[in-house]
């Protein structure tokens, strides 16, 4: 894992000192709220419905036990004993006092953590594949590039006041677990036998009210050119992106307006200029960072067959079957710990749970923890010989749900329970759906299914890329939930299609049941997953089941 240098540490101290002074100036009236807002946002501090919310960065979702314990401390000391893991691999604390934020940031800095650029119209926390370094077949560990991106974007003087927020994701795998097609910039690391390591660059993807699949700008960019090229994209966007309407300010709208060809031409021109005038990338820095991401020493792990543990313990067998992915080293598994216990708010973890996971990671799994954009926690390198012990530890803290990738593994935004922008509740909908799946005991039969819920058109719950997407709106003071089907955030990127008129919160439950009935009755076998079935049959059988009267009238 990346180890903070003296530079990182002193940079953080300086930023905290600066932020404390800004808070002081706000409290004494030197700064107006309008002037203070972008400054607090760049330090992760939002004003929400009931209190300030602090969003702490977990760069590319990687942390160790010391950092997880620090998050637990903060949840207990400054919040109500829990935190909420987000779809950008970050954590949010929802009940924060403005006067205490300086102290919180100072405590975070003790564990080499911060809240810099987790909000505001700047380059946000860079995300990547939560299997990074553990999955087979990666062109490189994407966290090396992600850490370089963190450094390049942190405090970048040119991009602190962009037209709108800017999100970058990196993947190094054929299987895209980082949703790169739906980011302002998506970066795919590739390796070619002739040209070496390089990048595919996608631009202008995004969700929100104008969902777009990212468009490819470059099919191969040499490794050392990355930051000159990104600077070219950012500079063109910063100068030409719209600032008159915040809903038209993302780079996807600029790419639409210019057309990909013209956008590429402008960016390439700027790229050539920067290549010519600016010094080359610091390859020594990259080599140092790469060393930090060397895999742990696996030599103590034994060959271990889980078969007997599974036979003796069916509940463990179910858990292992559902929450594990293959590790590139056969003595290990990649374990996903579900933060979607049926009926609890997706992504929430208590301080005790955080501490217990930290302990398990330290005792059994090389002290490494990941947060996924699907709001779960992972132990990326778990030796098989310790798997049973870890499972027992997870049972003690109520985090042994065997539902990773199933219908109740729902992504949901905070919605009307916390967010000032929300038009409808999303967490209670996720909770109700999960309880319903649990009661009917059919989610294992349904198999892989991604349900994603947003409480407003801004789509923080990624509903456009849910196999089943749910969008909560408000119609004449009543919550109304629209459904989309067939969205896909993977390498087969697709936007979901609307089924038709929305449903009340109550009717929504039945509507989801009907959708699942259509699938279960129509699939050729269990091998035909929901998303494959949808691609074969399309929207119409679902429409017929959801809106029977209408279909008959036609």
């Amino acid at each position: 894992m990346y180890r903070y240098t003296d530079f990182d540490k002193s940079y953080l101290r300086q930023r905290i000192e600066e932020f404390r002074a800004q808070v002081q100036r706000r409290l004494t009236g030197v700064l107006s709220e309008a002037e203070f807002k972008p400054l607090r946002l760049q330090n992760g501090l939002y004003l929400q419905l009931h209190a300030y919310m602090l969003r702490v960065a977990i760069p590319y979702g990687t942390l160790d036990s010391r950092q997880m314990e620090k998050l637990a401390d903060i949840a207990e000391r400054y919040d109500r004993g829990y935190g909420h893991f987000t779809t950008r691999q970050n954590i949010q604390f929802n009940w924060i006092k403005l006067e205490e934020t300086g102290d919180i940031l100072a405590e975070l800095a003790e564990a080499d953590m911060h809240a810099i650029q987790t909000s505001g119209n700047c380059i946000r926390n860079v995300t990547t594949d939560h299997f990074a370094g553990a999955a087979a077949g990666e062109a490189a560990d994407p966290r090396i590039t992600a850490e370089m991106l963190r450094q390049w974007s942190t405090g970048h003087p040119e991009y602190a006041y962009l037209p709108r927020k800017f999100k970058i994701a990196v993947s190094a795998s054929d299987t895209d677990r980082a949703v790169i097609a739906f980011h302002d910039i998506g970066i795919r690391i590739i390796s070619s036998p002739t040209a070496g390591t390089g990048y595919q660059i996608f631009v202008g993807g995004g969700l929100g009210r104008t969902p777009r699949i990212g468009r490819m700008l470059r099919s191969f960019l040499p490794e050392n050119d990355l930051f000159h090229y990104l600077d070219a994209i950012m500079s063109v966007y910063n100068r030409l992106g719209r600032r008159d309407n915040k809903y038209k300010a993302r780079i996807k709208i600029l790419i639409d307006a210019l057309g990909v060809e013209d956008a590429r031409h402008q960016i390439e021109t700027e790229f050539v200029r920067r290549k010519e005038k600016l010094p080359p990338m610091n390859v020594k820095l990259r080599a140092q960072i790469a060393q930090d991401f060397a895999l742990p020493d696996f030599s103590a792990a034994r060959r271990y067959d889980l078969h007997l543990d599974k036979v003796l313990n069916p509940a463990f067998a179910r858990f292992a079957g559902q929450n594990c992915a293959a590790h590139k080293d056969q003595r290990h598994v990649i374990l996903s710990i579900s933060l979607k216990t049926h009926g609890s708010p997706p992504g929430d973890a208590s301080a005790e749970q955080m501490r217990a996971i930290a302990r398990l990671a330290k005792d059994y799994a090389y002290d490494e923890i990941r947060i996924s954009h699907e709001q779960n926690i992972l132990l990326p390198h778990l030796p098989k010989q310790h798997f049973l012990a870890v499972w027992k530890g997870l049972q003690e803290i109520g985090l042994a749900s065997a539902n990773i990738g199933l219908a109740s593994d729902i992504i949901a935004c905070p919605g009307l329970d916390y967010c000032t922008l929300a038009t409808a509740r999303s967490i209670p909908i996720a909770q109700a759906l999960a309880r319903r799946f649990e009661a009917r005991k059919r989610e294992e039969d349904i198999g892989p299914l991604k349900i994603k819920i947003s409480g407003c058109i801004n789509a923080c719950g990624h509903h456009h890329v849910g196999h089943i997407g749910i969008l909560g709106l408000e119609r004449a003071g009543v919550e109304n939930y629209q459904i989309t089907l067939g969205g896909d955030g993977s390498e087969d990127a697709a936007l979901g299609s609307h089924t038709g008129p929305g449903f009340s919160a109550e009717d929504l439950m039945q509507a989801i049941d009907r959708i699942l009935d259509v699938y279960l009755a129509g699939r050729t076998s269990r091998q035909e997953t929901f998303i494959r079935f949808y691609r074969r049959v399309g929207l119409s059988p679902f429409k017929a089941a959801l809106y029977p009267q209408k279909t008959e009238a036609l």
Partner: protein
Amino acid sequence: MTIEKQVIDDTGFRDDSWQFFSKLTLNDMAKGMAARRFDKAVLYLENDQQIESCVRYLRQIKRISIAFPDASDGRGYSLARLLRLYGYRGKLRAEGHILADQYRHVRQSGFDEVAIPQSLAKRIGQKYWLEQVPRLAASYQDRIFNSPLAMRQEKPPIGNQ
């Protein structure tokens, strides 16, 4: 001309030495006007202007001011970088609604100084600006590029001044 703006650089509040120079716009330059008076003029740019028309004069121009109509509008930073990339070596001023907290961004993007309305300077006094000066040296971007502001024979990197 009354002193209605406050000029600020790394030494703090300073008198405006530009107030007696003539005022040029891109429009003037497009018409080929004032080509011999560059040493006694300031080129005033809006932050959304296309500067290609003035690129061939950049070696002669000595002073450029870029407008910052609003503290949250960051176009001026990229325009400054672009001018430096095109080889502009004269003085560069950021003028308008700029906060002390943005002094780092201004300086690291290639500007030398800022000019703000006196009303703003009364509220955000000299000490807030001077607090920022020691912070200019810390730059992640210098690490990524081995000093990005060096721009070859142009200006030295902020961190090495």
